């Protein structure tokens, strides 16, 4: 039992990472990674939403009719996202970040990770493992988000969390801030991950 629980938590972070292995939830992971601060807020929001909606859907799993389950799931997820959005809007320091993330907070609803975990795990498991599974998948997503944002902010503006880190003589590389570079960076992260773990390579 303990071994299974450990697998539930560790697997999504490394071997079955939602972004690099399952290729889910790419949309938001690229758009919000220009700055580390926004990426961190986004990561925490996604962790909260995946965990809570997996938990709620797992509680409801025996009462949802199969035919309309997608609508029910989307409504549960949308409710969680509205909660997160309202909390971010209410916070003193987080309001500006919420503005900066604009539609991407709303788009957590259609983040495939959330729906994917509900479909694949929460509908067939008890609430507590589902909660852990959701949190762990959110964390696997957040990890990649933070890595990409760290590299982009460091190379693109020479700062981290808005503080100057590289010497002032560093000329910021504007290419890194542009959207397409996020894709190339993510491609390289996948490359590194699969070179390290050969079992993930595609034929």
């Amino acid at each position, binding site marked *: 039992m303990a071994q299974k629980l450990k697998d539930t938590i560790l697997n999504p972070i490394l071997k079955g990472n939602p972004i690099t292995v399952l290729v889910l939830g790419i949309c938001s992971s690229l758009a919000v990674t220009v700055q580390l601060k926004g990426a961190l807020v986004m990561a925490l929001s996604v962790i909260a939403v995946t965990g809570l909606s997996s938990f709620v859907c797992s509680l409801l799993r025996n009462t949802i009719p199969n035919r309309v389950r997608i609508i029910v799931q989307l*409504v549960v997820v949308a409710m969680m996202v*509205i909660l997160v959005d309202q909390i971010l809007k209410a916070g003193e320091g987080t309001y500006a970040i919420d503005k900066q993330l604009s539609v991407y907070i*709303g788009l957590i609803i259609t983040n495939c990770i959330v729906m994917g975990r509900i479909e694949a795990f929460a509908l067939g498991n008890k609430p507590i493992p589902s909660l852990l599974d959701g949190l762990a998948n959110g964390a696997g997503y957040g990890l990649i988000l933070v890595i990409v944002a760290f590299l982009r902010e460091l190379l693109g503006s020479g700062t981290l969390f808005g503080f100057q880190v590289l010497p002032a003589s560093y000329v910021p590389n504007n290419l890194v801030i542009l959207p397409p570079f996020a894709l190339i960076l993510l491609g390289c992260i996948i*490359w590194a991950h*699969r070179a390290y773990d050969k079992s993930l390579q595609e034929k």
Partner: protein
Amino acid sequence: MEYISLFVKSIFVDNMIFAYFLGMCSYLAVSKNVKTANGLGLAVIFVLLCTLPINYLLNKFVLQAGALRWLGESFADVDLSFLSFILFIAVIAAFVQLVEMIVEKYLPSLYASLGIFLPLIAVNCAILGASLFMQQKEFASVGEAEVYALGSGIGWYLAIVALAAIREKLSYSNIPAPLKGTGIAFITVGLMGMAFMIFMGIQL
């Protein structure tokens, strides 16, 4: 004239994939060959065309601050905009499920070629994203919203068919083993995005 510039702008300058990364999951998953990419692209255009006007009217007459004025003066300062996520996604999911049932019943051949993609579309960020951008851009009429829907749908369609064609070719090239499949697809999309950036400076 305004409609034409909005149309061209939403296809190239504000391309859903290359400028906003919307609908990326199904974009990468279903772009392995041109035929299926074609089916999914057409389905996205269709769903966008149908759901965006509904959401536009919903936003204008129910959700916006003061939108409920038509019910009487006492509703003039009701602001329901915090409900927009849940209503938009409910409209989209309900519509997709409805279309799926109708197509399954009356057009079985279309269902066979399109069927698997329809449920996928409910969670395609490009659809919800278009509705949220529509809310942000504050279009003046349903017509404008419809043109925006058509433009962004076609932009998405072009992007997925182009990537599928490139990936079909790529399967014959010699790529380092860890980079095969997903990795090289990401880098290809990145390069395509750079190519699309030439449209960014264009004023319409």
